[in-house]
């Protein structure tokens, strides 16, 4: 087990000139020993590159990787003592389930009794004890991926276990089960787990800390609550949540916030620099208020969707779309109506150049 410190950048082509040449822009990050982390981002954002750099399958073009203050930048996965689980199940066709699980231990010359004990434990955790003597090749994709997971977890002394979207091929209901299983295994084994995914639900339920990535940049590292309440980058606001955060261009002058010609007072205790900013607010925090109430913003309703537990209101203001999550007993609204919404409150965030300022 180890604390992983990254201070690196990576480009697949030689002599990168501009930002777009980099698969990973310069970043500095620390993964604490025993933590459960997720790397979250859309396809092509560099999360798998980052994972492969940590596991040692890839050498970063600049910078270093340190495990517990030991420089391992050029070490092989074996030397780093890393375990990794891939997107598609990787199993050894000619071996039985038990032999598959024992393979990483056998290669490290672990004693027979210890292998048997450890394989038994892992099989128990993954509920595969009954299939130990079956040939791995004949099993379903789900079961094969469980074997891959098991091979990742079977060594108790690993520095970290890395998962590269391991549940892509798994059935939805099993996915949920396996995710819980992983969480439980994390508590029992106290391994450092790093989990790559593009599914925010998966990331937020699995990890204590989530790294959100976009276009080769790690834009925020934080807990699920941090990412939800105070996205440090507009991309995080946009990417996390369903639907994502609302953004409105605003002008700030002397503690007055101008939104589409309406002047709103700043909430008490908040200070903002003057100039062009972007206001961000989650649909969950937008309130329906009476006309004339303080901070009321008049908007035109464009669509109302009944999502069962609540109503999703889409409204327009000065060419911008604003979404609000309203309780389902809210008054009857029709497209074309003018309603008043409050967007200013303690949950409102402000951004300049996509970065949070307040």
């Amino acid at each position, binding site marked *: 087990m180890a604390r992983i410190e990254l201070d690196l950048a990576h480009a697949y082509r030689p002599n990168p000139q501009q930002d777009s040449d980099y698969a990973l822009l310069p970043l500095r990050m620390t993964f604490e020993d025993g933590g459960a982390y997720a790397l979250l981002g859309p396809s092509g954002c560099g999360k798998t590159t980052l994972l492969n750099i940590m*596991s040692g399958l890839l050498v970063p073009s600049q910078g270093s990787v340190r495990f517990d203050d030991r420089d391992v930048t050029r070490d092989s996965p074996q030397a780093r003592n890393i375990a990794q689980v*891939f997107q598609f199940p*990787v199993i050894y066709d*000619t071996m039985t389930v038990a032999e598959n699980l024992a393979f990483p231990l056998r290669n490290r010359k672990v004693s027979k009794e210890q292998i048997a004990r450890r394989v038994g434990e892992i099989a128990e955790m993954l509920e595969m004890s009954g299939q130990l003597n079956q040939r791995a090749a*004949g099993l379903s*994709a789900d079961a094969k991926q469980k074997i891959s997971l098991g091979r990742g977890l079977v060594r108790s002394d690993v520095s970290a276990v890395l998962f590269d979207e391991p549940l892509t091929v798994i059935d939805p209901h099993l996915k949920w089960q396996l995710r819980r299983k992983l969480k439980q295994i994390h508590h029992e084994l106290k391994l450092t787990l790093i989990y790559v995914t593009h599914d925010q639900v998966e990331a937020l339920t699995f990890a204590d800390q989530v790294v959100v990535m976009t276009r080769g940049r790690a834009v925020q590292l934080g807990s699920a609550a941090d990412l939800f309440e105070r996205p440090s980058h507009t991309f995080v606001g946009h990417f996390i949540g369903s639907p994502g955060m609302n953004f409105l261009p605003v002008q700030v002058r002397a503690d007055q916030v101008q939104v589409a010609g309406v002047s709103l007072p700043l909430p008490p205790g908040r200070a903002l620099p003057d100039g062009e900013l972007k206001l961000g607010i989650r649909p969950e925090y937008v309130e329906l208020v009476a006309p004339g109430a303080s901070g009321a913003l008049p908007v035109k309703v464009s669509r109302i969707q009944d999502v069962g537990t609540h109503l999703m209101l889409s409204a327009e203001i000065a060419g911008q779309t604003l979404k609000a999550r309203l309780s389902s007993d809210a008054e009857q609204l029709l497209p074309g109506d003018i309603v008043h919404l409050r967007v200013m409150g303690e949950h409102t965030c402000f951004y300049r150049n996509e970065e949070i300022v307040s």
Partner: protein
Amino acid sequence: MSTTTKPVNQKAWFLILPVLLCVAFSAIMPLMTVVNYSVQDIISPERRVFVGTEWFAAIMRDEELHGALWRQLTFSLSVLAVELPLGILLALSMPAQGWKSSVVLVIVSLSLLIPWNVVGTIWQIFGRTDIGLMGAALQGLGIEYSYTGNALHAWLTVLVMDVWHWTPLVALLGYAGLRSIPDAYYQAASIDGASKLDVFWYVQLPKMRGVLMIAVLLRFMDSFMIYTEPFVLTGGGPGNSTTFLSQFLTQKAVGQFDLGPAAAFSLIYFLIILLLCFILYNWMQRVGTQAKEGGHE
């Protein structure tokens, strides 16, 4: 019980008539001619005697045939024993990508493009002790090499010639199999701490199994019917040390004009090949379905 019955129209049988005619002229009738010869002793166009299964009985007891059959089996198994490991080794050492892989692929497949009788001629010259590179070199090393005089030398030369000609096929098939293994398998093996030998044994070989089965089938059947190359190189000699089944048959039918025994043997040869095909095909089918059950790609 259903009250509606399907309309019956037997005229549809006429639709397969063209195929039946084609097959009749291309396969059934020629084969029947052979059957016809195999049960008669044709002394002259006017005089022929029905002999029943006599030719079959005679040919089954023919010592020369037994010799040719054993020689053939030994040869085909030797071909497999040499070409399979060598082809796999070649496939493993071929570069995976880039211009180097294209160049190597072309060079490796060159020998497959040469016509059979040209291959025989090339080796005939190659093995000559006066002007041939191999023959002269062996002579220079003090080996009394002669593919025309020494039975063992002749047999080995034919084997080496076949290996030279056809190992590239096994290598190409193996190469295709290797290229279809996803990178994740190698990465996982490296993370699991597998040695190079482990990777070969537990990842590469099982993943190549499908294409190697095809290689076994092709090489076995092809070598079992080998004719042109040894015919050009050694003419079946010295003695009959390199007379394989095809050549034995040709000698009987064309050389000695023993049409009856030759026809009887043709049928037996045909049945042997049919039987081996059947066994290999079923074996491959079984392996194929196993691979399908196990595969996820």
